[in-house]
């Protein structure tokens, strides 16, 4: 369970996020929606513990980063937008490193790597260096990396970018499956993804949370019952 209270983040004079409040429970797939610069990535970074908030707090299972950082982090799996890998490592080495870092017992490492490789169709590239991989593979490797230790909260910034339609389909199914017991938070501006995936939409604009609703509700706000139209009208109105 994630509880966000009065969260705000400033970068100097820029107010990236202001006064955000929401709660997410297990079983939720939450889509963070918003135009560029709305503060989606910043919110994800705050949720993942990479950035420290300027104000407010994030509670994860009743604990805050300030007091229990090392207990919270194993529960979080965060893949940034750029899906960074260590280029000089092979995929296998990267997955092994991630599972070690995420405290997966050594006895389970091989099995778990085999599982995620199969899940994300990585078997063919296990011995390939990360830097030689295509964009789609890189993203899948990055997701597989954080999934080795099965985190309870998965935070993914634009997770399907660079994937072909088949891969997108596969990965969305995986998220749906994974979110049955866990929390999945994704940020995206692909409306189709929001519709197909999420149980909940958090619409951000200019650092503010302007809507906390479901995709279906959001679509209803537009005359043609279209999510994209609704998104445009809400965000443009705000201008």
């Amino acid at each position: 369970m994630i509880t966000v209270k009065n969260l705000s983040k400033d970068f100097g004079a820029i107010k990236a996020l202001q006064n955000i409040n929401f709660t997410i429970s297990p079983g939720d797939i939450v889509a963070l929606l918003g135009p560029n610069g709305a503060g989606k990535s910043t919110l994800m970074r705050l949720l993942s513990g990479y950035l420290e908030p300027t104000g407010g707090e994030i509670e994860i299972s009743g604990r805050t980063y300030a007091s229990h950082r090392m207990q919270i982090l194993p529960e979080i799996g965060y893949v940034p937008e750029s899906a960074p890998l260590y280029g000089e490592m092979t995929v296998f080495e990267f997955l092994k490193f991630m599972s070690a870092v995420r405290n997966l017992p050594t006895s389970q490492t091989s099995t778990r790597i085999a599982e995620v490789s199969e899940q994300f169709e990585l078997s063919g590239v296990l011995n390939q260096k990360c830097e030689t991989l295509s964009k789609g593979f890189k993203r899948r490797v990055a997701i597989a990396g954080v999934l080795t230790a099965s985190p309870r909260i998965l935070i993914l910034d634009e997770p399907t970018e660079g994937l072909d339609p088949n891969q997108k389909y596969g990965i969305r199914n995986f998220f749906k499956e994974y979110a049955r017991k866990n929390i999945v938070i994704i940020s995206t501006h692909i409306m189709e993804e929001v519709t197909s995936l999420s149980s909940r939409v958090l619409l951000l604009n200019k650092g503010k949370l302007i809507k906390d609703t479901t995709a279906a509700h959001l679509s209803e706000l537009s005359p043609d019952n279209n999510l994209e139209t609704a998104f445009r009208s809400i965000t443009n109105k705000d201008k």
Partner: protein
Amino acid sequence: MQKSTTQKLQKSLIICLFSLLLLASFILINTTSGALFSGRRLDLTSDRLNTLSSRTEEIIAGITHPVHVKIYLSSQISRQNPVLAQYAQNVIRLLNRYRDKSGHLINLEILDPEPYSGIETEARDAGLQALPADGNEKLYFGAVFSDDKGRSYTIAQFTPERFSYLENDLSRAFSHITMPERKIIGIASDMPLADPGFMRAEKAKNWTFINLLAKDYKIVPISTSSAEIPNVDVLMVVATGKLPSLFIYAVDQYILRGGRLMLLVDPASEIKRRLYPGIPDEDPNFDALLDNIGLHYLSAQVIGDREQAAEAYFAVSESADAQNHSYYPWIKINARHINRQSPLTAGFDNVFVKSAGAFSLKNGDGHTVESLLSTSENALATAANLAKFGDKADVLRYMDEKGQAYSVAALSEGEYHTIFARNPLENSAYAQQILPFLTTSIAPAQIIAIADSDILDTRNWADGENISDFAKDDYNLRPTANNFDFIQRGIDFLSGNPGALNISAKKYTGSRQTIAEIFHQQEMDKRKEDYNKISSRLEENQRKLDTINIMLESNSAFGTAKTLGEIDALKNEILNEKNELRKIEYQAKSEVTRREQVIALSNTLFIPLFILLLVATVHFRLSARSRRQARRIINE
């Protein structure tokens, strides 16, 4: 927003403050640990090169007022002479140890005597010796020790050859500053040893010990025709032949007045025959005097020793080729036969004597005698004249077993009687002008008697590539035997100058030789046979030439055409032989250079390649293991 900016500012401020605090504690910790621990360091050198001897510590403890040490070190040295630059670091580090130990009464100042600067003039005026350098520049590396009372001491030049004596030299300089005044050493000899004119002569290179002693003492020559020893702190007599009996009377009376005497007698002085062939070679007439102080002198006999013999290059018979053989009269007295209990000889490794005489000791009434250097239990002896005039093979052939050990040097202390039944000057007018005749001691005397004069010859106790420069620069010596240490300690002891008492040289188990020197030695060893052959031929021809020249001089006659022809032929041969020697040296040198080039190049290229290969192999095996692991997962 204002709140958050304030928060951030506060955070920055805290970090800055904390950093400053850390910086302050860094300074505090290091200055404190520096003050506490800089005097106490582990000395990791196997020969404790960075540790000062207890004698030095005593000298430092004796420093009660500030001593200023100005080290003149040309900055160009590091570029032009890396060996010296390396040594300079050693010297400065050791001086720092002195300073730390002295409670900072010693002030060190390092000055760079740049060419044509005021500092250069100052250095030159203080007596520093310049080193040869590129172009017109002069490089300096020496030190001037001085105090507020105007006393000063100069080390004209520090040279790496003196490495093992560095502490000795520095301590000597400090003790000199704290010492009241220079004592006077009188030197009398039948050889022109301490004559003011002789120092300029080429022969001076054999008598370096005088230059070295002159650093600490005032040396005055004393004529052997005097009937009374003037007021000196120590009298040194080197008697290789007969001395006027009046002089013996003077020495006798000097002893009875509580004199301090170092007496060197020699039945067969090799150095005298080499340097002064013109001086008549008669047996020394000191027997009675020596007998009187408890030393029975084996008159007209030269001692030999199988066990401690050094090697000489000669032919055992006319038909045989010359080569190295043990030559018994050349004795390298080793630690087993050096008196370890006496402060005069403790810690010595070896003392080299050549064709020495021998003493047997007997304690007498009122005085004690102690042997300092001796032969092994089974000494040999032969007639002094044979050793003087015969060839080496004959000397070896006619050496007799003596079946006992003899002393080569001894210390006699106490009171004595005169050896003269009556005053030999009794009825002369001269008797009135000198001190009255004594029959017994009025004060206890100290006498060190040594039965060899060759012990003094620089060639017998030091070497170095530039042996010909010894006269110019006696500081360059690299001692091979403790001969000079023995003389110096003896003089220090007799002059009652324990402040300057010798600190024994550091023994260095790590090699003090450079690799180039070792290679050169190896190459020369390969060519030893040829080299020795030619150099003995050269020596032979040189001797022949000298003999002809002396003959010509002493007969003051003109040479006949035949002798002139002979001289020319000899000169030609000598020239050829010198060229041949030079050629051998050149060959050795170019071989050394070739070896050095090969080693340098192969190391510079192969060590990196070898290590890279090694690391790459390990890396490859590890990544192959990881690849195998991955493959296993794929297959499963």
